[in-house]
């Protein structure tokens, strides 16, 4: 896979795309880091929904540039609200 990505990705009327410049895996530094990025995204998104009861707020957070770029500080791995007491 080269850095331009697959040309097969097409826009469908039933979808909304949230993307920000300079946030792809190549510009972020990792040439073959899609596995790392995907599993990390899985942890962040699932943790986000566990940390709040406000679904709309969680969805807005995922849409934001901060969420795509870096890990939001409010959802640290060691936050007590993500873990079983």
């Amino acid at each position, binding site marked *: 896979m080269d850095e331009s990505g697959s040309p097969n990705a097409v826009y469908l009327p039933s979808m909304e795309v949230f993307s920000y410049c300079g946030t792809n895996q190549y510009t972020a530094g990792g040439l073959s880091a899609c596995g790392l990025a995907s599993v990390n995204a899985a942890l962040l*998104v699932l943790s986000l929904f566990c940390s709040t009861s406000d679904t709309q707020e969680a969805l807005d957070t995922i849409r934001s540039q901060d969420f795509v770029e870096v890990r939001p500080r409010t959802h640290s791995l060691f936050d007590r609200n993500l873990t*079983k007491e």
Partner: protein
Amino acid sequence: MKICSLWTHEGHFDVDDVLALPMFATTLGTLAIEDNWCGPENFRALYGLVILYCDVTMLKKSSLLRDDTNTVAIITRPPEIVALFNVPSGDPESPFLPILFDSHPRPDLHPEGAAFIFFADDEGPIQYLSLLFQTYEVLVESKAWDTSPLGQYTAHVLKLQMSTPAEAEQAFYQANIRILVDQVSFRDATTRKTPLSVEVASLRGQMALQQQQIDRMAEDMASREELILLRHEVERLKRAATHEQWSGSWVEGVSGRSGALPRRLPMYVTQRVFELE
């Protein structure tokens, strides 16, 4: 995406390798791993599986996993990996929302960055994945072993794992200890390498010496053979000289008696006389 900047290596790794890292091993649990051919039917079945695992009653079978309704499928279609989520939508009429995360830039859709793609219905991600991981029918039908990775996908269906602060702390310590273990292993390997290099150098020196000895022996052998040949030649010459002396005295005796060569000498005597002249 910040995690990608920490990984500068070019080597590819599997989802299993990532999930084995302490930070993920203690937070994410694997519900199912599915290998299948790319195509709308199989992607539909996969998304059905993701929704199925959102069922709370299903999760009660496993006390380790959280009983919330969020599930993700990490889909690997070599060399690409994307994540397909099923999360609450907040809409009672359609309670679940499919979201796809893709860290690769896509020229026609998100050319500059990673993307979260929100789909309005369940068919959206199926259609999208079928187009993204498009494979030729011929390839799928042939099911040849050497081309199969191009037409197949592997999906890891994951959910958050319950962990206590103590477990999170334990993972932190494990990660650090693993670095220490790797450092020690590396040092051991380096130390083992040095004596081996010395031994290799010494063996090479011994080999060179032995080669020199072999060359010398070969020279000696050649000299000996030459010497034997020379000795044989000397012996032959000596024999020839003795024979010649004997023949000469015999001829002299005969001619001295009569004053002239006899009319009919034996053939070998005549020959020898002519040679002497």
